[in-house]
Each structure stands twice: as structure tokens, then as C-alpha cells.
């Protein structure tokens, strides 16, 4: 690696490439994740996020690329990489046929923990993830949120310093999602490097130090949340009118608006500051125009996302 950073890189990829048949999934991507930070790979379904995680976590081999995780070359010493990482995939990696506690002890045994230490770690993690009451029940009976928590708990048994989380909150209810965010923040506070994939922009905004937007196998943009938000044009104020005449007069009077005749809405470019809003409201009052509804829209990662991943397209569900 020629990159010079203040902190050593936990994950470094240069020219990562992967194709299945003639379908290119990852088309030469570069990633650099400093130790102890949260990196989020953001993208729509089918963008290649999961493939990136599978490759970096040694599950799948890359077609090309110089890949290092935890200082070890993936192509040369995958076992050393495995010893340094923990992975929680999109589909919960728990054994449904045995109990939560047995799952934990199984992983403890595979980490070669002495029996007593394995039991202690298991008890502590079950406690920490609120799974004590369910510990003796088969994991198949767990709810989605519980399975995900058990999954993360199993990942933490070996005390990994680099953790891959592939869409850790997909399919979780809002409460479980916030619980998961809390867990991730705790991990980072403990110095763990987290590689997170998500299709939720809010999640990346909440958690990540650095975000890369993956689209169609390429990194469309990379930076922290603020840097990414600067990519898209500023925010706007949206005025919605109940009657057509008020809408017309406002549309004629205001300059620089984007009008939507169907929905009777006007979009006025604005940074959403108090001063701009006041002058807009004063102007509306003096012109005796009354809008039915006024909403302030500051640029968020959604705008970035849509701007980078194909314009106004809504994120397509399913497929892949």
C-alpha cells in the first residue's frame, strides 16, 4: 500500500473486480478503511454490496485486486484474515436447530476458548444482547430481531477487531434497528473497525465516518456525509396550494421556481435558514398569497443517492 494515512488501514482494496459469468458485479473498486472507523457501503439492491462483503470476508474469491484485511493479503493468507474478522451476513448465520446458548458455545469452541472462558463469554454476551430469557430455546423460534442479535453476539465471541455487517438492520422493526445502532456504536467505542453495508441512507448518516456509494459495480462517490451532501444542489422550500388561482399567482410572482401544475406545488431553492424562510413568508404575506402547506427540504443523503444512482428512479425493490 502506498497510501499514507494517520491511522493504519484495517481494510484496503485496490482494483477489486468480480464477475459472475459475463455479468460484472464489481468493476474495479478501491476502498480504504482506517482502523477504528465505521465505513459504510451504500447502494441499491444488486449494486454489489454483498459481493464486496463476501470477498473481503474470504467467503468468495475475487477475480482481481490487491486486497488486504487486518494487514493480511486475502489471496495469500485467508486464514489470518479470518482470525482477525467477524462477519454478520444478510442471512442470519445461526444454527436454527440448536438453542441460542448452544450456538454461542459452538462458536466459543471453534475459537478454541477454554471451556470456562467460553461459558463466561457466552453468559456475558447473552446478557448484553438481552437473550438470557431465550437462551435455552431453539434459535428457529426467535424473532427476526432476536436472531440478528444472536448473530452479532456469535460474531463477537472471538473478540474480532474488524467486523463486517451486511445490511444488519434490513427487515428489522424501528425499535430493533435502533438497538442495533446502539450495538454498533458500542463496538466502535471499543476500537473495532466496522464495515457496514446498508440501503438505508439514514443508517449510513447516523453511523458512518465515511460513506461510499456503490452503484452498478462502481464507486459513484466517496466521502463523509457532509461531503456527499455537497455533491447535490442545495435544499428547497416546497409550497403546496389548495386552490389553483393562488397557485397561479404565486407561480407567476416567484422567480426561479420549479412548478408542478398537477400537484399544485412550487419548489423554491433555499438553504432552509431562518432568514430565508422569514423573507419568503413576508413576501407571501405581502402578496396576500396563502399556501396550504409549507415544507422545508434540506439536502440529505437521499438526494445524493438518487442523484448518483440514476436520477429520479426510486430504489427498486427485489431482484437479486
Amino acid at each position, binding site marked *: 500500500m502506498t497510501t499514507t494515512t494517520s491511522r493504519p488501514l484495517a481494510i484496503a482494496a485496490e482494483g477489486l473486480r468480480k464477475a459472475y459469468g459475463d455479468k460484472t458485479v464489481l468493476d474495479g473498486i478501491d476502498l480504504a478503511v482506517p482502523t477504528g472507523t465505521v465505513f459504510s457501503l451504500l447502494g441499491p439492491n444488486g449494486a454489489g454490496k454483498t459481493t464486496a462483503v463476501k470477498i473481503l470476508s474470504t467467503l*468468495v474469491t475475487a477475480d482481481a485486486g490487491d486486497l488486504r484485511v487486518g494487514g493480511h493479503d486475502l489471496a495469500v493468507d485467508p486464514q489470518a484474515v479470518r482470525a482477525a474478522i467477524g462477519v454478520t451476513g444478510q442471512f*442470519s448465520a445461526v444454527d436454527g436447530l440448536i438453542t441460542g446458548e448452544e450456538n454461542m458455545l459452538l462458536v466459543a469452541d*471453534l475459537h478454541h476458548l477454554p471451556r470456562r472462558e467460553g461459558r463466561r463469554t457466552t453468559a456475558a454476551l447473552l446478557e448484553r444482547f438481552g437473550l438470557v430469557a431465550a437462551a435455552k430455546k431453539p434459535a428457529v423460534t426467535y424473532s427476526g430481531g432476536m436472531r440478528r442479535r444472536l*448473530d452479532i453476539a456469535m460474531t463477537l465471541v472471538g473478540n474480532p477487531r474488524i467486523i463486517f455487517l451486511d445490511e444488519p438492520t434490513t427487515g428489522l422493526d424501528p425499535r430493533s434497528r435502533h438497538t442495533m445502532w446502539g450495538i454498533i456504536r458500542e463496538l466502535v467505542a471499543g476500537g473495532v473497525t466496522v464495515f457496514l453495508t446498508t440501503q438505508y441512507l439514514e443508517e449510513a448518516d447516523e453511523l458512518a465516518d465515511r460513506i461510499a456509494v456503490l452503484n452498478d459495480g462502481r464507486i459513484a462517490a466517496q466521502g463523509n456525509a457532509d461531503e456527499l451532501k455537497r455533491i447535490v444542489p442545495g435544499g428547497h422550500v416546497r409550497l403546496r396550494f389548495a386552490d389553483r388561482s393562488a397557485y397561479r399567482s404565486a407561480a407567476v410572482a416567484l422567480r426561479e421556481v420549479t412548478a408542478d401544475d398537477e400537484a399544485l406545488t412550487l419548489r423554491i431553492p433555499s438553504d432552509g435558514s431562518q432568514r430565508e424562510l422569514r423573507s419568503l413568508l413576508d413576501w407571501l404575506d405581502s402578496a396576500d398569497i396563502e399556501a396550504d402547506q409549507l415544507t422545508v427540504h434540506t439536502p440529505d443523503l437521499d438526494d445524493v443517492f438518487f442523484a448518483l444512482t440514476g436520477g429520479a428512479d426510486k430504489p427498486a425493490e427485489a431482484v437479486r
Partner: protein
Amino acid sequence: MSSLSPAVRDSYTMLRRNLLHARRYPSLTLNVLLMPIVLLLLFVYVFGDVMSAGIDGGGAGRAEYIAYLVPGILLMTIGGAPVGTAVSVAMDMTEGIIARFRTMAIHRGSLLIGHVVGSVLRAVISVVLVGAVAVAVGFRSTDASALEWLAALGLLALVATAFTWIAVGTGLASPNVEAASNNALPLMILPFLSSAFVPVDAMPGWFQPVAEYQPFTPAIETLRGLLLGSAIGNEWWITICWCLGLGTLGYFWATSLFHRDPR
């Protein structure tokens, strides 16, 4: 435990997991037991008198037929086990847990070894239970020495190991659990096409090669020789060749499938 090599240790952990599954969900093991026992009772008490007509050129009694039948039934017990193995391997491969195992720094083959050792242990236990039923309905060995009993058990374990590796490969090659169950079925049919129920000589001429050139017939004849004192001839080394061949084939097939990138 800490002094053991990681390979042994991880395989032992996987074996414990396999046996835990078997204990929690005994139905797969019980299914394996059920068929040979039902067949044993059916062939002894329902078809027994007719079937015994085919033994020793006719005129044999029920006791002779039981003696003839039991070695075949014992090997049939072994032959039934691979379906369960293929199913549980396929089940593992479709679950997320496999991704966890693959991304941990554990011995690569330990999961498969755990499956194989667990299956063989269960097969041997099944054989002992079916054997007990056989003794209960009147099976007696004719002056088999302790060494011959031991050889008989070793033979059964060897056949079980060979077929289990094939079953593991079948499970890995199957896209889902249902397919694994179907794909492993031929292994279960094979003993029916052997000398388990009637001697090969008593079969139609065109069918005799099918019964002759397959692993179960020599294995059954060897077991008969060990337990009943009939002539073994060269059947024992033919059996060993079959087992080593199938076992090696199954091992390389299974491990190469397992080391492929997952879908």
C-alpha cells in the same frame, strides 16, 4: 483438549454439533432404523416361508432364512443412513451458519468430518439396535469368534464410512434439501438389488450381473461368512476395494465441492 491439533479439535466440535442435532431431532435416525426392522419382520413372519424355499435349493426352514436374511438387513441399515446424511449436509449448506464457518479460522474440512464421523457413529448404533431385534426374532451366529465379531463390526463401519462420504458429496451437490433426499435415494435402493433377500443364483440370469457387480453383495457375503461360517472366498477383499474406491471418490468429490466458492 488444548493440546490437540486444530484439525482434530474443530472436527470434534463439529461432531458434537452433529450429535446434538441427532439428539434434538431423532426422527432422521429413527426413520433409518424403522425400515430395516420392518423389512426384517416382514420377511421373517410374512414372506419367510416362501422366501426360504429359495435357500439351499429349497426345504430350508424359517431359522435358516433368518440366518440368511440378517446380514443383508444389517447392511441395509447402513445403506439407509446416507439419505439422512445427505439431507443434513444439504440443510447446512442452505443455512446462513455455513457462511460463518467459512469465515472463521477453523480447519476447513472439520464440518464435513464432523458429519461423516457423526453419521458413521449413528449407523453403527443403528446396526447394533437392528441386530438386537434380529437376535430377538431368533438370529444366532454359528460359532463366530470374538475376532470375527470385531471384523464384522469393522466391515460395517467401513461400508458406512464409504457410503457416508458419497452421501456428503450428494448433499453438497444438491441445490436444496428435497433434492438431496431424492439424490441419495439410489444408495438406499442398492441393497434391494443385492443378495440380501435371495441368493444371486436364484435371480433371473439377466439380473445376476447387477446383483453381482455392486458393493452390497460382496459385503453381505463377507458378513455372512464372518457370522455364519459360510465360505468368504475373495469377497472380503472385493468389499474392501469397493469401500476404499467409493470412500476415496466420495471424499475427493465432497471436498472439492465444499472448497468451491459458494453461490
